[in-house]
């Protein structure tokens, strides 16, 4: 059975894939379907959903098109979630590999730094970082990665500690390979599978953190974000609850989709490794 077919043989993976595909389609088609500024006024304020079919999900307090905002917000959520997770996984794997492979003082220093980051709640860290440096998309990505790289670092280190005792590492040393080449050519690629297995949780957490930062007004002010939309709707929660509910549902479905698809991938690779 091909990996793709095996992946699609579990209902979770199918559901996750459908949700993620819809999200990516939204993000990619945002500027095609809704050209122009999504933050521009498009109609009367506080129009409820399903009243005017040119504004299917209604408008917010300032008369902005909720559907357009939703599509452009998908773009921000996805971009920040993926970028922050990629940064966290990359930094974590490199730090974990160096610590585990070098051992001794290098390991001690790197792991104490990891401890320091882990003792501060990651959301507080992101909050403090954005407050000090100022909100922009890149800063939000860095802020989220700051709090999440420690998990991948610990997993990578544990894996590297077991891999560095294997014969093929001894064999690479015996042919005279440079220690850094051994660490990044021989050890790291084989330590990655369990680290990558964490990626779905990290992406999901990053999307939620981004939403939370935006909700608190610390997102990039020039971009539409789902967290910002929920915050917007909060003031009129009693009279126009849909303004908070619609982006809220989008957020839940996105996180669910990322998680389910990630689980499906982990399951597929685990089955493959179990077989060989």
């Amino acid at each position, binding site marked *: 059975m091909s990996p793709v077919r095996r992946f699609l043989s579990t209902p979770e993976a199918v559901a996750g894939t459908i949700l993620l595909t819809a999200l990516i389609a939204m993000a990619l088609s945002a500027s095609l379907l809704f050209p122009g500024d999504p933050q521009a006024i498009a109609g009367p304020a506080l129009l409820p959903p399903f009243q005017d079919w040119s504004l299917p999900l209604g408008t917010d307090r300032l008369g902005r098109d909720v559907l357009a905002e939703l599509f452009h917000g998908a773009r921000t959520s996805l971009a920040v979630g993926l970028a922050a997770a990629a940064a966290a996984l990359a930094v974590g794997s490199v730090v974990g590999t160096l610590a585990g492979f070098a051992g001794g003082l290098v390991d001690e220093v790197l792991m104490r730094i990891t401890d320091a980051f882990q003792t501060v709640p990651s959301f507080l860290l992101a909050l403090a970082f954005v407050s000090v440096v100022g909100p922009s998309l890149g800063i939000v990505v860095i802020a989220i990665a700051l709090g999440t790289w420690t998990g991948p670092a610990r997993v990578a280190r544990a894996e590297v500690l077991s891999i560095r005792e294997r014969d*093929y590492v*001894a064999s690479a040393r015996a042919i*005279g390979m440079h220690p850094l080449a051994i660490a990044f050519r021989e050890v790291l690629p084989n330590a990655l599978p369990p680290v990558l297995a964490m990626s779905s949780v990290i992406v999901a957490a990053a999307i939620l953190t981004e939403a939370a930062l935006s909700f608190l007004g610390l997102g990039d002010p020039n971009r539409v974000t789902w967290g910002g939309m929920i915050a917007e709707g909060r003031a009129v929660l009693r009279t126009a609850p849909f303004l908070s509910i619609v982006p809220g549902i989008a957020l839940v479905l996105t996180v669910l989709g990322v998680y389910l698809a990630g689980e499906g991938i982990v399951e597929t690779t685990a089955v493959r490794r179990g077989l060989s």
Partner: protein
Amino acid sequence: MSLLTISNLTKRYRRGGKTIAAVDDVSFHIDPGETLALAGPSGSGKSTIARLVLRLIESDAGRIEFEGNDFLALGGAALRARRARLQMVFQDPLAAFNPRATVARMLDDPLRIHGIASRAERPRRIAALLERVGLTTDLAPRAIHEISGGQRQRVAIARAIATKPSLIVLDEAVSALDVSVRGQILELLLDLQRQEQIAYLFISHDLGVVRAIAHRVVLLEAGQLAESGDAHAVIDAPQSAIGKALVAAAPRLNRTRP
């Protein structure tokens, strides 16, 4: 002059507060083009000696002289460069290769690291190495886990001879192979020795194989040298207690007809 001289080599481990000498004051030498076997039961220290000689682990005391130089004094780039002359083949060829690697990449590594061949020339050199160990060149793009155990051990030997070493440490290199494959690998090793004058440090618990392939043998027990000498002389009439026990324990095949 001998190729490798080991003097008073000692390696201690701490285990549960006690210090145990895995290798205890062992001395021996290997001449160019010679096969010296290290034999002994498990825990006798033979694999530890292999790793000490290759400097995969560091010794606590003693000297290792290789090709006339103090091998223990080398470090960093100088040690890595010298490793070209001293290679190793492991027991389990599957464990000794990066699980993601292809045959070609495993043979490319030594050629690249030691600057033996330019990038353009390497595919031809890899093909020549594969042919030298009795494999076809179409194996090069295959993944290591796709080929058979015997083929894998041939690739391991090709990787070891790529840098034209003067000594190869063979750590139980034929023990895990099927008997029908084992004979072919031993023939290949002997052929390489005849053609290229490579010396072998042959580590094995199988006295039958040691007697068939080695010039001299060193018997070890609990990290200490128990007996050494001509392989036939020692195995045909062992003097030490461990030598007698090893000979007595070897399975015998009585092939007289019923």
